[in-house]
Structure formats: C-alpha cells, structure tokens
C-alpha cells in the first residue's frame, strides 16, 4: 500500500520543485515519473471521468495525457506550474474525447454552479417582517473553546473527508485542489480551464458545506 511509504513524496511535486522534477523527468528518471503518476493518477481519472461516458474511456484519456506530458516535456517552459500544465493537457484530451462521444451537455456546464445553494440554512436567520430580518436567529458560536486536540482528531478529519467525498464532482475537485492540496486559485482556473467566478462559487459552496458539517459535529458532546 502507498500508505506504508516512509517518506512523503509530495515535496517534489509542489511548484517550487518543478524545475528539479522536470530535469529529473527529462533525464529519464523513472522514480520521478512514478511519483508523479502516484500523486495525480486518481485525481486525473476522476476529472477525466467528468468529461467522458465510461471509466474505461477515462482511463484511456489519462494514459493519453501522460503520453502528451512526456512528449511535451521538452517544450515545458514553466510559465505555469507543472501540475497545472499536466491537468490542462488532461482536460484538453478529455474534451476531445468527449466531443467525439457526441455528449449532449456542453463542457462549460460541468464547472458552472447550478441552482441556488445557500451557505447557511435560511431558517438560521430572522424572517421578513422581523425588525432584524436577515440577521441571525440562531447565531454560530465561536470554536475558540474547542480544544485543538479535538479539532485535529482523526475523527474530525474523517468527517471533513467524508463531506468532501459526498460533494458534487465539480465542488469536490475544486475544494480538494484548493484547500487539501494547496493549489492557488490561478492554478485551478488554468488547469481546469474555468472562470474565476465559477471556481470561486464552487469553492464557496464546498467550503460552506464542510463548515456546516463541522458545526454540527463540534456541537455534539465530545
């Protein structure tokens, strides 16, 4: 299992190590390539799957993307981060495949937030007609009194993980990239070829749901 790795391989995958990593890849360093594969493969598959009809096609898309990455390596100039560049290649290939499949929904709708999703249940605010309408009826309470041990417990983190897994794919991928993996907003926009606004709304909805779940969880007795 991957979990038994003693050394976190991620350090080399952060943008500040891009030059080093690209150099290793160009030199034919197999370990560097497999680190990259292990780091991004699952994420690439999930994203590819959003564009194409079957898991099998998504797997082909990912494979094709890696070939594209290797072939393009000499031309990689570092104007974007390596990970942004890899995902942009993936998304372009996925779109081409998706088009060939004659899918009915446009790709732009994949990343556009749909409908209305209030960050907080409307019932938490005072209703129209009240002197303080639109202000808290049931205000959130500070978490300052919650011990750090509890906040950082495996159980709390498992809750967060569970909520993220259950999000719609577009919200899930955006919050993973931004808040779990630490990508910048610009990296995410460029990697997925989405607008700043869509990215922010998806992030907002995802974060709001995680906060809500944490509020429920932390209000239970420890």
């Amino acid at each position, binding site marked *: 299992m991957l979990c038994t790795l003693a050394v976190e391989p991620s350090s080399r995958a952060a943008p500040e190590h891009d030059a080093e990593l690209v150099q290793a890849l160009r030199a034919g360093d197999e370990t560097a390539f497999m680190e990259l594969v*292990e780091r991004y493969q*699952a994420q690439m598959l999930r994203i590819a799957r959003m564009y194409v009809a079957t898991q099998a096609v998504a797997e082909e898309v990912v494979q094709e993307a*890696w070939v594209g990455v*290797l072939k393009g390596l000499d031309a990689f100039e570092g104007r974007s981060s390596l990970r942004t560049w890899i995902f942009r290649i993936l998304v372009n290939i996925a779109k081409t495949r998706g088009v060939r499949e004659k899918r009915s929904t446009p790709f732009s709708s994949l990343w556009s937030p749909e409908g209305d999703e*209030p960050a907080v249940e409307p019932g938490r605010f005072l209703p129209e007609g009240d002197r303080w309408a639109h202000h808290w009826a049931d*205000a959130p309470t500070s978490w*300052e009194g919650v011990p750090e041990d509890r906040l950082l417990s495996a159980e*709390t983190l498992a809750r967060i993980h569970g909520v993220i897994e259950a999000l719609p794919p577009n919200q899930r991928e955006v919050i993973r990239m931004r808040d*779990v993996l630490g990508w910048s907003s610009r990296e995410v926009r460029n990697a997925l070829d989405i607008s700043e606004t869509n990215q922010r709304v998806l992030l*907002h909805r995802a974060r709001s749901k995680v906060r809500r779940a944490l509020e429920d969880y932390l209000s239970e007795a420890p």
Partner: protein
Amino acid sequence: MSAHDRDMDCDELVELVTDYLEEALEASERARLEEHLAGCDGCTAYLDQMRTTIRLTGMLTGREVPVEGREELLRVFRAWRSGSTS
C-alpha cells in the same frame, strides 16, 4: 447598486465570505462587510469558523489510493525514454 447604500445583512455576509477571503471583493463591498463584522458577533464567529474549516481541510493528506495501470505507464515511460535518447 442599491446594496451599497445600506448596511450588510448577516445572510448576505455568509454568501460573501469566500469572495472576502479570496480578496475578490471591491473595496466598497469589503468596507461594508468589515463594518458589519465589527458590530456582529455571530458573523465574526462565522468567519472564524470558515477560517478554521479551511485550516482543518488543509490537514487532510490528499494522498489517494493508488489506481491500476502503473506497470502500463512504466512501459510508456520507458518507451518514451528510449525514443528520446536514441
């Protein structure tokens, strides 16, 4: 535009929190939001909760279960390498 003339409501603030944290608000909107925060304990707690939420989400490892196909990709890599070095 009319929103600029009046004080911010709590149910408006909770929808602007991400724009605020992303520094995507216009100066006038940011000022309205901060003015509201200064007088509202509930929203101050809400913003703190959101910051804590982001911090805790950042504690997840992001590590994933490895997927199939590593050997195949290793072959792809070796083929590329032999092609590129010849």
